[in-house]
């Protein structure tokens, strides 16, 4: 186990390093690297000024020198200054991060608890209308782009029915209920795909457990039906959905970019898209590295969880 742990840890660091290399390499890949700092249509700037700007960002130096310098400052926690906002990137990210984390937490709760519960129900009432209904909904979810689902929800729930506010996050001075109402739509959209994942996994592992000897024994001993399902079977069936949780949280990274864009949510997913449209490389690199680190850490946790639960994986 220890050997496996160390190997996965080394691999995680290797992945992280690759991400920094890919981020930096791609940013310098374009026809003119200055484009990542200055908009294409910023005409009227004299060649002399452009040269000065190149020197300012070190773009006149060879690639490896630039990379080493950039890495050096990243390791020291210095992500540079935003081009658009003229402020340190770390400050901007720190301001925006809570909104993203809160949304992800709410979405995770909305996805996991109903997903597991409905998965159990689907497995117990296998073949019923209920089972077909939830599985069809999950299948539809797989084919729906999250950004379109978000727009559809805004149209139906916010614009037509006027039940919930259409977008953004409420001010922190508002009442709790008002603030919560702004969370519902984005969290539902962000949590929809994970919800389907939880449902499918719980259903299949529940079916497997319900068929096992110890459940039959419990039934034969005369344990009540509800107790068999919720106490004996579910405890064992939960392993699969639990291990996948780390991957679900990693999937929120891609999800939050879309959901935050549609709902104008003031988080870092939207910040990344804005930075990309504004040619603001320092901000974009900061967000991508932060997301990338979270992604690698989540994958690492998922790997370790799998190995703890299923010893066969360790000898892979």
């Amino acid at each position: 186990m220890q050997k496996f742990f160390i190997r996965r840890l080394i691999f995680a660091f290797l992945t992280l390093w690759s991400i920094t290399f890919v981020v930096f390499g791609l940013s310098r890949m374009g026809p003119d690297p200055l484009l990542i700092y200055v908009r294409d249509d910023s005409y009227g700037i004299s060649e002399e000024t452009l040269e000065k700007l190149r020197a300012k960002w070190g773009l006149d130096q060879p690639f490896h020198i630039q990379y080493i310098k950039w890495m050096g400052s990243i390791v020291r926690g210095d992500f540079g200054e935003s081009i658009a906002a003229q402020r340190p990137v770390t400050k901007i990210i720190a301001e925006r991060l809570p909104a993203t984390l809160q949304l992800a937490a709410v979405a995770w709760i909305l996805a996991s608890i109903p997903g597991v519960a409905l998965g159990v129900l689907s497995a117990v009432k296998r073949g019923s209308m209920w089972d077909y209904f939830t599985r069809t909904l999950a299948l539809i979810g797989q084919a729906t782009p999250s950004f379109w689902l978000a727009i559809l929800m805004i149209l139906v729930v916010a614009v037509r029915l006027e039940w919930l506010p259409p977008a953004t996050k409420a001010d922190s001075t508002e009442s709790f209920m008002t603030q919560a109402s702004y969370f519902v739509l984005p969290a539902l959209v962000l949590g929809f795909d994970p919800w389907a994942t939880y449902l499918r996994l719980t259903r299949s592992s529940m079916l497997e457990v319900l068929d096992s000897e110890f459940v039959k024994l419990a039934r034969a001993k005369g344990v009540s039906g509800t107790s068999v399902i919720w106490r004996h079977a579910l405890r064992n069936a939960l392993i699969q959905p639990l291990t996948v949780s780390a991957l679900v949280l990693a999937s929120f990274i891609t999800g939050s970019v879309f959901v935050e864009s549609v709902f104008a949510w003031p988080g870092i997913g939207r910040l990344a898209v804005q930075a990309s449209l504004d040619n603001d490389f320092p901000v974009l690199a900061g967000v991508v590295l932060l997301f990338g680190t979270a992604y690698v850490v989540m994958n690492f946790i998922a790997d370790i969880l799998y190995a703890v639960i299923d010893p066969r994986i360790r000898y892979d």
Partner: protein
Amino acid sequence: MTDQPIVFQSPVKRVIAVPGRVFSFSKRWPIIPVVIMLLIIFGAIFAPVLAPFEPQKGDLRARNMPPVWLDGGDSTHWLGTDNLGRDIYSRMLYGARISLFVAAVAVSFGLVMGTLTGVTAGYYGGMVDEILMRLVDLWSSLPFLLIALIVAISVGPSLGMVIGLLAVSSWSAGSRNIRGEVLSLRNREYVHMARVMNASDVRIILRHLLPNVMHVVIVITTLRTGSMIIAEAGLSFLGVGVPASVPTWGLMIAQGQKFLTTTWWMSIIPGVAIFAIVLSFNFLGDWLRDRFDPRLNQLD
């Protein structure tokens, strides 16, 4: 597995039960998804002939027209027009071209590269296998959407960039399954036989192994196509994909979002198309999987 008692069902009974018959018919051949796919592919190929209007030219007198089934709709623009008076039906046809073309190229590249890696890793084993599989692991743990955002500012949005990005992001998917399949085939008698007969590695791979993993490749490819279509639409939606001068489904959804309170069909119609074609590909993929290789069930 089932907790229901097994009851003998005569074939006659099954034919009479109508819902059962429809179900078993769609099990035999997923007719509806295939028809939807063929219609959209047909529309994409013959877009210049089928489109009644030019996709980028607007008629400001006819702007914000609803689809024909709503009040105020007109059959000249049966899917309505957008805020600039451009015909949505024509734009949809041209958008289908981009979606399908990008998905087809990206998936084909992924198919060739993924199969090559999987077969090589599985056949040679040892160090080759170890290195290739670590590379696949590394590749699948890179967040490609974020990488797309970086490429979008350094190279600038273009069709080639989107295709290239999706192609490189898709090759690692499935190579693990293919490798597993090859591992199980490697020690079969006919492969040993071929080796005894002095067949070269290339010959063994091409003649004996490849045909036997094709079913896995086909299933994976079909299931990947849907996610490629969604990925392309997503990049265009964010404005970091295909440039805005080209009509794409993702871009149309993004443009319509501003007018959701009035001309909501601008966003909803392209979404329905994406949904329909992705669902069709997923259905077909599931069907192929059940048909050829039920063991691939954990794939998605």
